C-alpha cells in the first residue's frame, strides 16, 4: 500500500478496521435499517411519512452535493478551507428533524443540516463559506463554521468540545425559565477527551437540564483512532460515570437516529439528559488541510461504503416505492442548479470591511478600541508607500 519511502516518512497506518456497524446487534447499537435499507433492526420504524422521509433523503443528498462543491471551491482556491461531512449526513438530518425549531442546536464542525432544514437559505450558507459581510457571523469564522441565531443554531468557540457545557447551560436556563426549549449538542468522539465533556456530563447528571448530548463517533479525530482516544470501548457508556442515561445508535440510519432522538426529546423533562453515541464514519478528509493516507488505509472507507447512509436510505425509500430513478435524476439536477446559483450569489457579495472587525468586542465600544481603530486608519495613510 505504502511504498518504502512513504513508510520511512510517516508512522504505519494501522490495518483497516471493519465497520462497527457490522456488529451492531451484538454491540447493542440500535438500528431500524439493516445494511440493505430494510427495516430489520432492533427498533421499529418511527412515525415518519413518505414526504418526511423523502425530505430526509433529499436533504442528505443536498448535503453531499454541498460537500463536493465546497471541496472543489477549496481546491480551486476560491475559499480557504473546507471541512468535509461526507458519510455523516444521516445523523445530522435525523437529529435535526427530531428536535423542534425552537430548540437550540450546538453544532460541532460537520453539521449543516440544521441550516438547511430550519429554513435558512442555501445562498446564505455559501455566503458563509465566502465570508460575506452580510452572513450572520460577518465573515469572521473559517468556512464551514456556521452559526445562525435566527434558526437557533450556535457555532461555539473553535476549541473542540468547549461548547458542550454551553449546550447544557442553555438547556438549564430554559428549564429555569419554564420554557419548552430543549437543546441538542453535537460533538465528536475526540471531544469526549476534553475537560468540558467531563464538566458538562457531571453538571447534567446533577441538574437534569433538557439537553441531548450527541456524540458523533466517526472513528477518527484527525489521525487519532478510537482506541487512542479512550480505552473504553464505547462512548455512550461514559454517561454512566455521571448518572447520565445513554445509548448507542447506528448514525448512518436516519430512522434509528430519528427514533431515539425524538424519544429522548420527549422524555428529557421527565427522565433527564441523554448521551447518544451515533456511530458513523468520516468518509472524507479531516479538513482540506489533511492527508488521511498518512494514517489510515484507503481500504477502510470501502468497508464502510455499504453502510453509506445515502445508499441505505435510498434503498429503504425504493423498497417502499417512494423513490424512483427519475426522482434521483431530478434531485441531482436541482441540487446542482441551486448550488450554482448560491455560489454565484454568495461569491459576488461584499466582504466585510477592515473596520467591521472592531464591532462586537463589547456591546458598546470603548475609548481604547476606538483609539486603536483610529490609529490603524491613520497609519494606513501615514504608511502609504
Amino acid at each position, binding site marked *: 500500500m505504502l511504498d518504502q519511502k512513504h513508510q520511512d516518512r510517516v508512522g504505519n497506518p494501522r490495518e483497516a478496521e471493519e465497520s462497527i456497524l457490522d456488529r451492531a446487534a451484538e454491540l447493542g447499537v440500535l438500528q431500524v435499517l439493516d445494511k440493505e435499507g430494510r427495516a430489520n433492526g432492533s427498533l421499529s420504524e418511527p412515525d415518519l411519512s413518505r414526504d418526511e422521509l423523502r425530505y430526509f433523503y433529499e436533504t442528505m443528498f443536498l448535503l453531499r452535493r454541498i460537500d463536493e462543491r465546497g471541496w472543489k471551491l477549496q481546491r480551486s482556491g476560491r475559499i480557504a478551507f473546507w471541512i468535509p461531512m461526507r458519510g455523516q449526513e444521516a445523523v445530522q438530518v435525523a437529529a435535526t428533524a427530531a428536535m423542534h425549531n425552537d430548540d437550540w442546536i450546538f453544532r460541532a464542525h460537520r453539521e449543516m443540516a440544521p441550516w438547511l432544514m430550519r429554513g435558512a437559505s442555501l445562498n446564505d450558507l455559501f455566503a458563509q463559506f465566502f465570508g460575506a459581510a452580510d452572513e450572520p457571523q460577518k465573515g469572521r469564522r473559517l468556512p464551514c463554521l456556521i452559526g445562525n441565531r435566527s434558526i437557533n443554531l450556535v457555532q461555539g468557540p473553535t*476549541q473542540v468540545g468547549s461548547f458542550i457545557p454551553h449546550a447544557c447551560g442553555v438547556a438549564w436556563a430554559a428549564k429555569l425559565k419554564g420554557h419548552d426549549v430543549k437543546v441538542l449538542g453535537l460533538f465528536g468522539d475526540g471531544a469526549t477527551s476534553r475537560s468540558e465533556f467531563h464538566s458538562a456530563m457531571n453538571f447534567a447528571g446533577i441538574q437534569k437540564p433538557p439537553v441531548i448530548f450527541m456524540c458523533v463517533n466517526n472513528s477518527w479525530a484527525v489521525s487519532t483512532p478510537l482506541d487512542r482516544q479512550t480505552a473504553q470501548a464505547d462512548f455512550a457508556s461514559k454517561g454512566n460515570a455521571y448518572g447520565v442515561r445513554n445509548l448507542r445508535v447506528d448514525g448512518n440510519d436516519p430512522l434509528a437516529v430519528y427514533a431515539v432522538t425524538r424519544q429522548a426529546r420527549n422524555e428529557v423533562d421527565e427522565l433527564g439528559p441523554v448521551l447518544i453515541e451515533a456511530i458513523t464514519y468520516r468518509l472524507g478528509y479531516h479538513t482540506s488541510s489533511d492527508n488521511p493516507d498518512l494514517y489510515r488505509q484507503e481500504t477502510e472507507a470501502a468497508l464502510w461504503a455499504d453502510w453509506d447512509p445515502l445508499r441505505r436510505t435510498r434503498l429503504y425509500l425504493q423498497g417502499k416505492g417512494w423513490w424512483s430513478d427519475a426522482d434521483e435524476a431530478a434531485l441531482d439536477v436541482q441540487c446542482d442548479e441551486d448550488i450554482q446559483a448560491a455560489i454565484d450569489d454568495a461569491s459576488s457579495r461584499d466582504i466585510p470591511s477592515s473596520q467591521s472587525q472592531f464591532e462586537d468586542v*463589547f456591546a458598546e465600544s470603548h475609548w481604547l478600541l476606538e483609539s486603536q481603530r483610529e490609529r490603524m486608519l491613520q497609519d494606513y495613510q501615514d504608511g502609504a508607500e
Partner: protein
Amino acid sequence: MAVMNVIESLRAAMAWEMEHDDDVIILGEDVGTAGGIFRTTEGLQNRFGAERVIDTPMDECGIAAHAVGLALYGLKPIAEIQFSGFIHNAHEQIMFCAAKYRWITGGQYSAPLVIRAPSFGGIKGGAWHSQSPESYYIHGGGIKIVVPSTPQDAYALLLAAIRDPDPVLILEPVPLYRTLSGEVTDNGEAAEIGVAETIRRGSDVSVITYGPLRHDVLAVAEELQASSGLNAEVIDLRSIVPYDVECLVESVKRTGRAIIVHEAPYSLGFGAELIAELQQRCFGYLVAPIDRVCPPDLPHSYRVGDEHYKPDARRIRAAMRNIMKYEY
C-alpha cells in the same frame, strides 16, 4: 444608608438584584447551603431558593462554562470562584468562550456572566490564596474587570457588573471583607464601569492603584504630606477594563510624575500597560520615568509573608520619595 462591611455590601447588591430581576442566579462551590466560604452569599439560598443559588461540583472549568451557557440563553449568572487562585482552569472558558461569544457570532449571541473572584493578599494565604489574576483577563479583550475596595464601591460595582451586557470579572478584596466597613446606600444604584476615583488631590506625583492597596497608598500619601510636605495625588482605578484614561492623563500631565502600585507580579502586571499608555500620552510632561511598585515575578510565600510580597508602606514610600528626587 447603612453601615456595612464589604461582605455585607456584596451580599446586599446580589440580594437587591435577585429581588428585582428573576434572571439573576448564583452558582459556585459552597455558595448555597454554606453561604460561601466567606459567607458572602449567606442566606441567599434560603431566600431565593436552591434553583437560583446553586451549589456546584468542584470544577471551575465547569462553573464558568455552564455560566456561559446560562448567560447565552438570557440569564444573568453570578459565578463565584472560591479564590481567584483557582480560576485558572476556567481561563479558556472565560477568555476564549465568554469573552469572545459576541464577537465570534457576529454580535448574535453574548454571554454576560459575572465572575466573582476573591483576590489579593494579606491573609497569610500563600501562593494560591493571595492572587491578583487580572493580567490573564486583560489581554485579548471581551471581558470587563472591576476592582472595588470600599463597601460602597463593592455594592455599586457588583450591581453594575450584573447589569452589564458583557461578561465582567469582579476582583473582590479578601483582606478587606470584614475589616472595612462604611456607609452604603442600598438603593439599587449601580456605579459606572470605567470611572476612576481620585481619592486624594495632589500636585507632586500621581500614584495610581487599585484593590486593597488603595488604603495603603492613601495612608502613605497622608503620612508623607505630614512628614515631608510631599503632596501626592492618589487615584483608585476601580475599573481596569476599561480604565479611566482621561482621569489618569489629566493627573499625570499635571503632576509630571506617576507611580503604579499593584499586587500582581511585576512582568506584564497591569502597571506595564498603564505605563506604556501614559508614557505615550504624557511624554512631554513627564519629569521622571513612570515607576511601578509591585511584587516580584514569583508566588506569594506563606512564611515570608505578605509584608515582603505585596507592596508595603516602605516600598510605596521609597518610590514616592525617589521619584521626587529623580534626575537624569
